[in-house]
């Protein structure tokens, strides 16, 4: 039935499809940032007199069809954070034209133009863009600017716990978010157990979060897409920035390889906790922790039609320890890291057809290594969990007419999952175990979407994605219809609705404990079927262009089928002994159960962009429940990240041309946890019933996730001071995390009262009032 409806919608739009070809000219080109040549994603070219407009794609390319004529028309090119350009052209022939928008510099007030605020007219819904500048203005833990932490401040997005970099979008788990950096998926976006994310703000140009109404070009996850674009690098001149922070230092350098034609950007960040710790340790002991990120990108403008981009990300966290004394030597390390690489070729076949061919590789590895030597005895342990992908994809943007803009493409990914590999060697008993489980799979997707303007008021994005997954000789094939539509009630007010079906062919096995990144990526298999979701959303959007803000209210309902969880009593560590007495890893398939999740709620978002003041207010009211046959005796229970109320207030105020004050305040209802409420003792069944035997106690847990931790709230403050001297700009930022030192819960445990020794529920908190200072020089 749903496919018939889609077909009918295509047919409905066909008259406009047919007449669209007559007497039209095409205007196409790139929109860039003036002075750097950076492509501007999402910049809008509008023709107010014709009520037409188009947004630039992910490479800054636009194409718009106009009725040909002899009277000139005015084009307005705009983007938030940039000065608007107005230009008249004569629409008498096809034209290639590039625009350069002047950016608002740090020393000026943010320029906001009423033309840039057109959210009500957008067909998309449940999507929010964040610019690098907006992320930079948000005060952060230890002053480390963080993309993921910024996303956590948006409505519909929740963080896991204190300091967590996990994203929980509309009731979905952290594995249900597709995090892509220049088209490459990043499987673990956490540094230091989630206190920081892997996305270095210096290297980021733009972030788009999609929570619902997914366009057909996106697939593979149930709950959200976080599309992060790295900077291309300045094509006009060499620039850089060096920053020193409380826990890490960073540097970025960018510039032309050939002026105006090609550029590079290189950015890095590293912590120095290990260097400080080393000073305090005795010489026989070495221990520490560090993480680093390295982002690099090259881009080449080969011709007016061809561009090449190469980008890569490398990041790693490592804890290490070694001890040497006499004949004893022990060393251990725990590490995890991502490496991604993307090669892209843009090709303009003509002014209406734009192609991007990408080859993408990504690798995520988590490992533990340990070795002990006592004289001649050597014992060692190696543990590894890994996922490796290679992807080839091609996307086409076809600006067919002023009413139809098609996007189509296909992709294929080869996944190699190694959920667990263990190597144990020991002198005692000649222990030698080397075992691992591996899964190889192929994921494919093909899509078509039509951004169609059905009438002047009604527009829609209608699409279909066909996805498939091949694993263990099992072939899954799933059609995924998508539609989002908006109806303009007037120029600034619209109602929007969307429906999306999504499939996810890989799962993240997460245990309930905070701490180690022991989550394992595993594929769908014959036994563990793919996750699947349906989401419907509806809302209204109102722009207040003269006042500089946009307001939206959305409601949603999402059902997620075949979501995965560990069975009760299961552990990621468990192993089994085979019939021939060999230790083997227990297959994850035997440790998990699948069930359903339901999430519904409402989100309010008010975003303001005034000359001196910008930021947003977000409020989410939501419910998330899960149900598994073999957990909680089949009864539905609240997800651990079910959060009834979630509020974020983000304010950035330009006090003077040199000083900016930023505040964020967040509030979230307490997380749901399962508490051990008591114990019982049982004799155990004895057929003779003639004696008491061993009477082990069993723990009585309360209702699954039936206990709520305290509510979370926190105020962060940042004060940025900018001084310009010659070609250098110095930026000093004082940040205060948790300004009123609220003891927010990290986890609960059962401890003892110091005076009465009676058991009490205790809370561990992590971060009190925490000031930090960072200093950066831009040149």
């Amino acid at each position: 039935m749903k496919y018939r409806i889609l077909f009918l919608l295509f047919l409905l739009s066909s008259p406009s499809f047919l007449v669209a070809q007559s007497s039209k000219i095409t205007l196409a080109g790139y929109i860039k940032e003036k002075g750097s040549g950076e492509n501007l994603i999402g910049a809008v070219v509008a023709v107010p007199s014709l009520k037409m407009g188009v947004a630039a794609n992910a490479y800054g390319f636009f194409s718009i069809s106009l009725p040909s004529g002899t009277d000139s028309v005015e084009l307005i090119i705009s983007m938030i954070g940039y000065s608007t350009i107005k230009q008249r052209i004569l629409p008498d022939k096809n034209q290639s034209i590039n625009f350069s928008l002047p950016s608002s510099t740090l020393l000026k007030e943010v320029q906001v133009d009423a033309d840039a605020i057109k959210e009500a007219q957008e067909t998309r819904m449940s999507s929010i863009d964040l610019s690098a500048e907006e992320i930079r203005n948000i005060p952060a833990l230890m002053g480390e600017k963080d993309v993921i932490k910024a996303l956590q401040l948006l409505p519909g997005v929740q963080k896991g716990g204190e300091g967590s970099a996990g994203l929980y979008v509309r009731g979905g788990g952290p594995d249900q978010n597709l995090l892509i950096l220049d088209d490459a998926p990043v499987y673990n976006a956490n540094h230091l157990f989630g206190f920081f994310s892997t996305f270095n703000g210096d290297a980021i140009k733009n972030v788009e979060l999609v929570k619902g109404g997914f366009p057909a070009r996106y697939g593979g996850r149930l709950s959200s897409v976080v599309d992060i674009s790295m900077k291309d690098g300045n094509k006009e001149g060499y620039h850089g920035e060096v920053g020193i922070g409380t826990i890490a230092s960073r540097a970025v350098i960018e510039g032309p390889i050939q002026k105006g034609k090609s550029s590079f950007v290189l950015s890095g960040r590293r912590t120095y906790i290990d260097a400080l710790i080393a000073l305090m340790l005795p010489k026989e002991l070495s221990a520490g922790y560090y993480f680093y990120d390295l982002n690099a990108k090259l881009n080449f403008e080969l011709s007016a039609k061809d561009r090449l981009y190469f980008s890569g990300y490398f990041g790693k966290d490592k804890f290490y320890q070694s001890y040497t004394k006499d004949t004893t030597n022990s060393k251990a390390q725990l590490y995890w890291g991502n490496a991604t690489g993307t090669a892209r070729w843009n090709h303009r076949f003509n002014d209406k057809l734009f192609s991007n061919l990408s080859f993408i590789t990504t690798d995520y590895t988590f490992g533990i290594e340990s070795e002990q030597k006592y004289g001649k005895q050597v014992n060692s342990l190696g543990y590894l969990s890994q996922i490796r992908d290679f992807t080839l994809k091609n996307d086409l943007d076809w600006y067919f007419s002023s009413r139809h803009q098609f996007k189509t493409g296909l992709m294929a990914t080869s996944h190699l999952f190694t959920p667990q590999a263990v190597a144990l060697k020991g002198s005692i008993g000649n222990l030698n175990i080397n075992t691992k489980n591996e899964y190889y799979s192929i994921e494919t997707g093909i899509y078509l979407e039509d951004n169609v303007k059905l009438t002047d008021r009604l527009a829609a994005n209608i699409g279909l994605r066909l996805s498939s997954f091949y694993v263990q000789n099992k072939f899954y094939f799933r059609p995924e219809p998508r539609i989002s539509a908006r109806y303009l009630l007037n120029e600034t007010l619209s109602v929007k609705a969307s429906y999306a079906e999504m499939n996810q062919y890989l799962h993240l096995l997460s245990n309930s404990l905070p701490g180690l990144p022991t989550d394992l990526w595993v594929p769908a298999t014959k036994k563990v079927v793919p996750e699947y979701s349906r989401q419907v959303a509806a809302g209204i959007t109102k722009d207040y262009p003269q006042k500089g803000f946009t307001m939206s209210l959305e409601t949603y309902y999402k059902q997620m089928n075949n979501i995965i969880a560990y069975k009760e009593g299961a552990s990621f560590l468990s192993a089994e002994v085979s019939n021939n007495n060999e230790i083997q890893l227990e297959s994850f398939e035997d440790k998990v159960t699948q069930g359903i999740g339901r999430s519904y709620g409402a989100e309010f978002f008010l975003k303001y962009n005034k000359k001196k003041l910008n930021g947003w207010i977000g409020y989410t009211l939501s419910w998330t429940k899960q149900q598994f046959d073999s957990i909680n005796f089949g009864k539905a229970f609240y997800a651990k990240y079910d959060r009834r109320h979630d509020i974020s207030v983000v304010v950035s105020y330009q006090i003077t041309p040199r000083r900016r004050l930023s505040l964020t305040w967040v509030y979230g209802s307490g997380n749901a946890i399962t508490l051990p409420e008591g114990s019982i003792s049982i004799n155990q069944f004895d057929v003779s019933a003639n004696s008491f035997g061993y009477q082990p106690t069993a723990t009585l847990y309360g209702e699954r996730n039936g206990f709520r931790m305290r509510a979370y709230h926190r105020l962060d403050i940042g004060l940025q001071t900018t001084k310009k001297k010659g070609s250098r700009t110095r930026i000093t930022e004082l940040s205060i995390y948790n300004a009123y030192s609220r003891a927010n819960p990290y986890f609960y445990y059962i401890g003892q009262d110091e005076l009465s020794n009676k058991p009490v529920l205790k809370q561990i908190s992590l971060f009190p009032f925490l000031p930090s200072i960072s200093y950066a020089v831009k040149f």
Partner: protein
Amino acid sequence: MKTTCMFILSLLLSSCSPDFFDQAVPNAKLDAKEPDIVIEGYCGKDSVFSVLLSKSKPTFNASATEYTLDNATVTISNKGTACILNLDNPAFNGNKFNQSRYRAADTAFKFKTGETYDITVHANNKTATATCVIPGDAPVFTYKVDSLQGNEDDDVYIDYYAIIEWDVAAGDQNYYVLQAESRSTGNTNWSKSYTSYDEEYAYASHDAANGHFKKSIALMRKYKKYYYPNSYPYEFRLSLVRANKDFYNFYKTYKLNAYGGEDPFAEPVSLFNNVKGGYGIFSGYAVRQTTFVSNIY
């Protein structure tokens, strides 16, 4: 500037007190939780009934210090016929048991196949009730004794075990438990045999391969260092117990809950419970047994 720095420093110092990082979370509802009645009762066909009663120990109630429940009024009934159970704790040496035993006063009160029985326990202003049905006879089974050599702490051992096989009828919805007991010649009491940690406790008929079960149960483990050249005759008793679904669910969750606590990464296990107003298990069962004498000891 100096004042600002002093202000920030004083705030920092005051917020870093140990109480900030680790503090009690008062919760009156948790603190006030009273112990509940725990029933452990198994009704075997033709057997004289005894039930083990205890109290749960709420985690945050400091006054709940022991499990035993010696002041309960216990009644078991079937179709209007009721029987009172009396406290009958076994003698103990030193260590007090965690449960209190109650026995049926009327030895004529016997359980019959297919009948439904109700138990009611009153104690400390609380009432707990449960119901069970006595299942049909346990199926006929065959057995074979075998052994396997292993190594533990550089010592060789031999595990003796019985392989037991039985068939289940098509559409059977029953649950089974295996038990092995042993006693030396001349001893009247049976003792539970050595139990392997990996041994399953209960089996569901729907898990039988082609309607057939083939399961092993440990009889004893004999270490080489304690190995005597001579062997002595020892008597073993094998029991195949037919139980019900509640019994199966209780023991599946109980084993995971009580024995799975050593793995810090293990997920919490909710304990199955078929007692209204309390906790525990009240289940009917039927047993089929066979004995044999072996010189493996």
